[in-house]
């Protein structure tokens, strides 16, 4: 990229007859460097050589004027005048440099962020032919798309569909928030572990550091580590052959490390920390012995198509194919390009991992708007200076300067200001880089910033061209006789242009304020909406391993002995977790499947409903004293009652039916709870049930603690845990914090909008300041005459302020409807959201009016107090 740019530049300035052989020398030199250095560095050396070649004896005759003494004297004069002007008007320079630096810095960070977001899954070999198979089905009468597929699908499509070159499956350790990796006495917790088919690394071609790409997942109980995880466990040594113990809800098992892959610098939706062989017992064994083609959609199937295959046609064939083997292939399948997954769908664990194409579009728009505002400011300010520069232009024209030369002069000046801003921006970027890294979780190191210097210069050039072109053409077009004749040169054309530009700024300002207000309100709404259960002072303690789960009763009683701990109960899913298990229920055993409804099922412990404080609207909850409770008794929510077509009363003590491995099973409904938000407010409340199962396999304990001295309580809990399970680290989190984590990407969005609203508003105000200076400058005589004729300061003030209010009014008419439409669409992402009222329209307008009036008043105050004789004496 740099090399190509350098070559284009070189070809442009070099003498045509010199070009071929010097270019050859450059190439040979480049190849020599390439052997020693990285591509990037060699490119930079190439660029350096090209700059060094820019000499009088090499450049083409047309450019010789750059070095000729006559022209360079003029050039020197331009530079001198430019610097004198910058120095003389320090405030003007500072405001311009500030505005442009803010614009360039924002643009830089936005573009860096977008670049990294777009880089996800772009590294796979033949990545354009890689797809993930999705499943389209119907749940409770609504069509849903699942990103998972049945276990038998892979072998079926490989056998029946010649266009599929290869296929691999992966399973995440389902519903597991943590895997504990143990090596000797070292323990590390990891969230992203997968089980995969042996050919995983042939399809997702991560660079392999140790082990064999083809065979490292073949043996049962083999495990491949990412470089990041390997470094944590082994430092720099080759870990292959070592045994690692992995502890999670499925139990404790030993794995042999068979390889290491390089995950650094690679962004992928999978982003695995480690990958185990599918042939590793537990869920892997379940996959191995399972060839179902329908249902059991719990794993991810990836296919690689042969070149030239039409993906849509291929995906559409799958359902029919399955129909050859299964009676009722209820679900259709589709392909999602792997490269699109990160930005266009959610991750394997069901949660969204932050990539969202809509946010990318919004960010690009904001970046463009901010740069546009910065450029408009610059243009407005420069034209505002016209009256000061008019005499200089007049003198230049008198001495024979052509319009073209004046254009060049002013473009040059804007370039100078841009270069100053660039330097400020680079400093700002270095300063802000750590904050950016902590905000986005994406490191940017100094080298990356340096690599982007060329890019920054490109932004700078573009900015100076955009910002400088209007003023320079405007200034060069000033009529000589007007300038030197002492008449002010206020053409209506340029006046309208400036007004349009200001209206545009107001529009952007209002839009962004509408955006940030709406997001703030919605996030506030989420935080304060009653969820139907008590989430404060609830501590979630993951049970981590089978060893703990089997001793649940002991754990609970130990905890409850601690003063400050009020109640505790086990649960499989906390209200902040997506309930993965669901079953099809029917109100009577004879009902056909189509009339059944899907109910999410959470297996819980006695007392959980009470700990969470969920309201019981009918019947009762599980009772420890009734032994029959342990099997087949359930408590449902009202959504489930409605979906089954029953009432709270009629469902009590009634059986509802579902199909399990050994036929139809009846569950007895002993109670109904009110609808509580078991999922994030993005989603409506699903039919939900609590069940008691023998040999509870809950995954965490929720304990209710006192708000006072909670730190002491937590350390007491930790002590008890450590004495019970010395080998397992104590972990906990607050339920309300875990709930808020569901809205992390929304909060990020809110923060981004807030940040850039502030930036844009500041830029807008700088712009209004510039325009007021201009108008006041132009109207000093008018003001003076008005005063002479008896106008009061407030008369003058209101006549000017009204002009601005008119502009704000026009801007409001344009921006408020757009803002409302856009933000309504954002709100639709939440099943529960606020409605936008009149205040959403009025407050931004008020903010714009007050802040701009404040700025205007500052300028007008001095102008209106000026002594008319000082102004009018000259005429």
């Amino acid at each position, binding site marked *: 990229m740099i090399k190509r740019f350098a070559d284009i530049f070189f070809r442009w300035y070099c003498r045509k007859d010199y070009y071929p*052989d010097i270019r050859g*020398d450059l190439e040979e*030199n480049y190849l020599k460097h390439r052997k020693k250095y990285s591509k990037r560095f060699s490119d930079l050396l190439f660029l350096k050589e090209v700059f060094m070649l820019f000499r009088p004896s090499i450049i083409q005759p047309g450019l010789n004027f750059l070095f000729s003494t006559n022209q360079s004297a003029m050039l020197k004069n331009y530079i001198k005048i430019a610097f004198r002007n910058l120095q003389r008007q320090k405030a003007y320079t500072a405001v311009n440099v500030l505005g442009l630096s803010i614009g360039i810095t924002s643009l830089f960070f936005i573009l860096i962020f977008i670049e990294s977001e777009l880089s996800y899954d772009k590294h796979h070999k033949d990545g354009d032919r890689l797809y993930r198979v999705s499943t389209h089905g119907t749940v409770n009468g609504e069509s849903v798309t699942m990103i998972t597929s049945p276990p038998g699908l892979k072998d079926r499509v490989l056998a029946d569909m010649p266009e599929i070159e290869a296929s691999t499956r992966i399973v995440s350790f389902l519903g597991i928030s943590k895997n504990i990796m143990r090596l000797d006495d070292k323990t590390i917790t990891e969230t992203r572990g997968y089980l995969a088919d042996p050919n995983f690394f042939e399809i997702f071609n991560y660079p392999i550091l140790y082990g064999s790409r083809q065979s490292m997942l073949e043996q049962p109980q083999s495990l491949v580590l990412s470089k990041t995880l390997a470094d944590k466990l082994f430092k720099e040594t080759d870990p292959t052959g070592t045994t690692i113990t992995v502890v999670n809800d499925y139990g404790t098992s030993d794995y042999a490390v068979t390889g290491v892959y390089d995950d650094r610098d690679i962004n992928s939706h999978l982003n695995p920390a480690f990958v185990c062989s599918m042939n590793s017992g537990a869920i892997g064994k379940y996959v191995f012995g399972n060839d179902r083609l329908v249902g059991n959609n719990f794993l991810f199937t990836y296919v690689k198509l042969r070149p030239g295959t039409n993906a849509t046609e291929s995906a559409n064939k799958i359902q029919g194919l399955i129909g050859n083997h299964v009676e009722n292939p209820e679900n259709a399948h589709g392909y999602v390009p792997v490269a699109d997954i990160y930005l266009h769908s959610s991750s394997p664990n069901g949660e969204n991992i932050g990539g969202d194409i809509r946010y990318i579009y919004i960010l690009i728009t904001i970046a463009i708007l901010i740069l546009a505002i910065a450029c408009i400011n610059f243009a407005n300010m420069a034209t505002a200076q016209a009256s000061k520069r008019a005499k200089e232009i007049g003198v230049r024209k008198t001495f024979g300067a052509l319009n073209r030369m004046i254009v060049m002069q002013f473009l040059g000046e804007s370039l100078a200001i841009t270069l100053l801003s660039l330097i400020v921006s680079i400093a700002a970027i270095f300063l802000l880089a750590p904050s950016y890294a902590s905000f986005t979780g994406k490191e940017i190191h100094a080298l990356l910033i340096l690599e982007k210097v060329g890019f920054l210069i490109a932004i700078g050039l573009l900015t100076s061209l955009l910002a400088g072109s209007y003023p320079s053409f405007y200034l060069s077009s000033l009529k000589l006789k007007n300038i030197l004749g002492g008449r002010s040169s206020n053409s209506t054309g340029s006046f309208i242009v400036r007004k349009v530009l200001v209206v545009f700024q107001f529009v952007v300002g209002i839009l962004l304020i509408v955006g940030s207000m709406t997001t703030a309100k919605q996030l506030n709404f989420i935080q304060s909406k009653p969820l139907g259960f008590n989430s404060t002072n609830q501590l979630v303690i993951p049970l981590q391993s089978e060893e703990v789960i089997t001793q649940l009763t002991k754990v609970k009683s130990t905890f409850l002995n601690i003063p400050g701990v009020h109640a505790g109960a086990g649960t499989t899913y906390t209200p902040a977790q997506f309930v993965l298990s669901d079953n099809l229920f029917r109100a009577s055993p004879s009902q056909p499947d189509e009339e059944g409804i899907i109910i999410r099922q959470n297996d819980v412990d006695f007392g959980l409903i009470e700990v969470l404080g969920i309201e019981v609207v009918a019947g009762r909850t599980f009772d420890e004293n009734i032994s029959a409770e342990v099997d087949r008794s359930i408590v449902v929510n009202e959504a489930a009652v409605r979906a089954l077509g029953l009432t709270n009363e009629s469902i009590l003590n009634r059986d509802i039916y579902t199909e399990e491995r050994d036929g139809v099973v009846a569950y007895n409904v002993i109670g109904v709870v009110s609808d509580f938000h078991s999922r994030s407010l993005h989603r409506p409340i699903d039919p939900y049930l609590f069940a008691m199962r023998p040999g509870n396999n809950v995954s965490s304990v929720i304990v209710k603690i006192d708000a006072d001295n909670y730190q002491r309580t937590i350390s007491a809990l930790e002590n008890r845990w450590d004495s019970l399970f010395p080998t397992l680290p104590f972990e906990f989190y607050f339920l309300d914090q875990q709930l808020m984590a569901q809205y992390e990407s929304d909060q990020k969005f809110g923060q981004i909008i807030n940040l850039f609203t502030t930036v844009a508003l500041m830029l807008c105000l700088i712009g209004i300041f510039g325009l007021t200076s201009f108008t006041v400058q132009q109207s000093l005589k008018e003001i003076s005459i008005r005063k002479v004729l008896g106008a009061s300061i407030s008369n003058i003030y209101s006549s000017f302020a009204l002009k601005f209010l008119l502009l704000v009014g026009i801007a409001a008419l344009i921006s408020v409807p757009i803002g409302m439409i856009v933000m309504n669409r954002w709100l639709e992402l939440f099943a529960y959201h606020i409605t936008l009222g009149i205040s959403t329209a009025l407050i931004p307008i008020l903010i714009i009016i007050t802040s701009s009036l404040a700025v205007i008043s500052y300028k007008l105050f001095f102008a209106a107090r000026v002594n008319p004789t000082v102004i009018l004496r000259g005429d």
Partner: protein
Amino acid sequence: MKKFQLGEFEEIVLLTVAVLDQDAYGFGIKEEIESRQERSVSIGALQSALRRMEKKGYLTSQKGEGSTKRGGRPKLYFRITAHGMKALDYNKNMRLDLWNSIPKSVSNLSYD
């Protein structure tokens, strides 16, 4: 004689062209100077010196073959002219003359 005057860098380039004889082209000259003198030479400085001396008549140039190493671009071979040799000779003699004029007491200076 002012017309034979050579800059320090020009002299080195001219000498190197003479040394390389049939093989003197841009990158080759650069490599030769860099390996003999342990200094780095920018293509810009070298090329502008070569073109300048060509104009003065110390060098002639001739288009040569291309190679894949150069992205298929032709080499431009430089040969030193009789005039160029004369300029080198003049410079050498001028320096020799100066060397020979250094008094014994100065040339015997030691480091202590």
